[in-house]
């Protein structure tokens, strides 16, 4: 069983982070990012050509992360691979001991750096979860043929509580849970009110008893970074008060950290939120400070004491 799964099942409030692979072969950049956050997180997500920009593969990066002493969460998207390639990579990763998988549909290629590429989208994230669950639990491929050997995997999915149609989001999550999702990592939370309402619906359907929900956190580095996300990143909702605080801050970086820490505190108080997923893209070095200030350090099994 993966550490992430074990901690979640023990009821520990978990911390995961995100590491984006380099646009090249510089493995040291991954090792360096890992060194910055080791001991402060329970697992690290490795993105799969996020925003449809070509990078070192998620699969290879996961192995580098593991060598660097951290537990990887391998992200897989349906944009670039069909059901044949996705199942094959899943088996390969399982055979090499990767145990956490985040199943995503993927950002559209026309928003990335190879907009002329042809997309795949043979299946969607819900179907991908279902296929992986069947391989693990029933020992059969998508076509029903038998899989040799025992597969161990902890399956997750993403969800954006802030995208439209709002009322449908919870039901989409329910579909992911039914398909096989055991954990969920959400889009970055800034609008706590909207998120709380989403969680209320989750509790009403008792989904929080079936799936571990990790709320997304993005520490804001600057007002420009905020405006970029607000205007350019689809599905991101940032309320005006956050923008005002960043605008009036003497030290925007400090303010960004403060907002992240306050958000984490508020999220911990929401029933059904089982951890946080910190996406400090290109600012991984800030993760330890946020984890410490949130009272989530030390992490269990990593230097003694419970981070609960």
């Amino acid at each position, binding site marked *: 069983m993966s550490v992430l799964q074990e901690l979640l099942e023990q009821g520990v409030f978990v911390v995961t982070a995100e590491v984006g692979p380099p646009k090249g072969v510089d493995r040291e950049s991954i090792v360096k990012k890992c060194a910055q956050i080791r001991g402060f997180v329970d697992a690290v997500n490795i993105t799969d050509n996020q925003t449809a920009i070509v990078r070192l593969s998620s699969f290879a990066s996961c192995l580098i992360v593991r060598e660097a002493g951290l537990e990887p969460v391998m992200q897989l998207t349906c944009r670039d691979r069909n059901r044949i390639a996705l199942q094959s990579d899943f088996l390969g990763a399982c055979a090499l001991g990767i145990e956490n998988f985040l199943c995503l549909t993927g950002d*559209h290629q026309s*928003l990335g750096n190879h907009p002329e590429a042809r997309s795949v989208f043979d*299946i969607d994230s819900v179907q991908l979860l279902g296929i992986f669950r069947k391989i693990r639990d029933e020992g059969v491929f998508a076509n029903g043929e038998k899989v040799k050997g025992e597969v161990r995997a902890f399956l997750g999915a993403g969800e954006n509580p802030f*995208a*439209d*149609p709002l009322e*449908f989001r919870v*039901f989409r999550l329910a579909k992911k849970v039914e*398909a096989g999702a055991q954990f969920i990592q959400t889009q970055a939370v800034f609008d706590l009110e909207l998120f709380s309402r989403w969680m209320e619906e989750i509790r009403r359907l008792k989904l929080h008893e079936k799936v571990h929900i990790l709320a997304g956190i993005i520490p804001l580095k600057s007002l420009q970074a905020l405006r970029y996300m607000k205007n350019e990143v689809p599905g991101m909702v940032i309320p005006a008060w956050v923008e005002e605080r960043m605008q009036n801050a003497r030290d925007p970086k400090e303010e960004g950290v403060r907002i992240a820490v306050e958000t984490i505190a508020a999220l911990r108080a929401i029933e059904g939120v089982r951890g946080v997923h910190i996406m400090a893209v290109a600012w991984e070095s800030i993760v330890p400070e946020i984890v410490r200030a949130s009272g989530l350090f030390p992490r269990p099994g990593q230097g003694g004491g419970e981070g609960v």
Partner: protein
Amino acid sequence: MIVGERKPLREILESLSPYREVLVLGCGACVTVCLAGGEKEAREVAALLRLKGFAAEAASVERQCEREFLVPLREKIPAFQAVLSLACGVGVQTLSEVFPGIPVLPGLNTSFMGAPLAQGVWEERCIGCGECIVHRFGGICPVARCAKNLLNGPCGGSKNGRCEVRPDRDCAWQLIYDRMKALGRLEELFVIQPPKNWGPSRFGAQRKIVREDVRR
């Protein structure tokens, strides 16, 4: 209908540069309706070509995609060095098959199967996936209209009813949600749609239908 768009004149002139006597051939079917390659457009293009020094003539047939409508051109075609076809890709190919001895150049880009929304506006509705499931989505096809052809609900980028990929397009899933809600059939969207069989789609192989009941 099949919706097409005339190629830029520059591109047409470039492809016709080795020739002087050119027949511009319109088609009376879909591309006439979408104002891209009918008789009127053929006459316009021929006039433009004459201004550029070509000996261009315009003609049109009822449907370029059917051999029997092309056969009457047998007498006419040999007088030209090339044909600029304003039909869709199907018409261009049928023409090439019937007259293999003459270069046939496409004057249109075949865009999609779609419908007119307003005068001068057309939008895609069908990708011809070969296995229609549109009834499961309130009559709105996510395979053709969602940029990621999602079958299990909207992606995380749907905002204010718009698609994250092209904000001037509707989010198909917002439309599906609204329609199913209005029909009181929302629960049907909570059912997991299994992976689609793409075998009958163009990803299978070139498609062909043989109907013994009507075959001669």
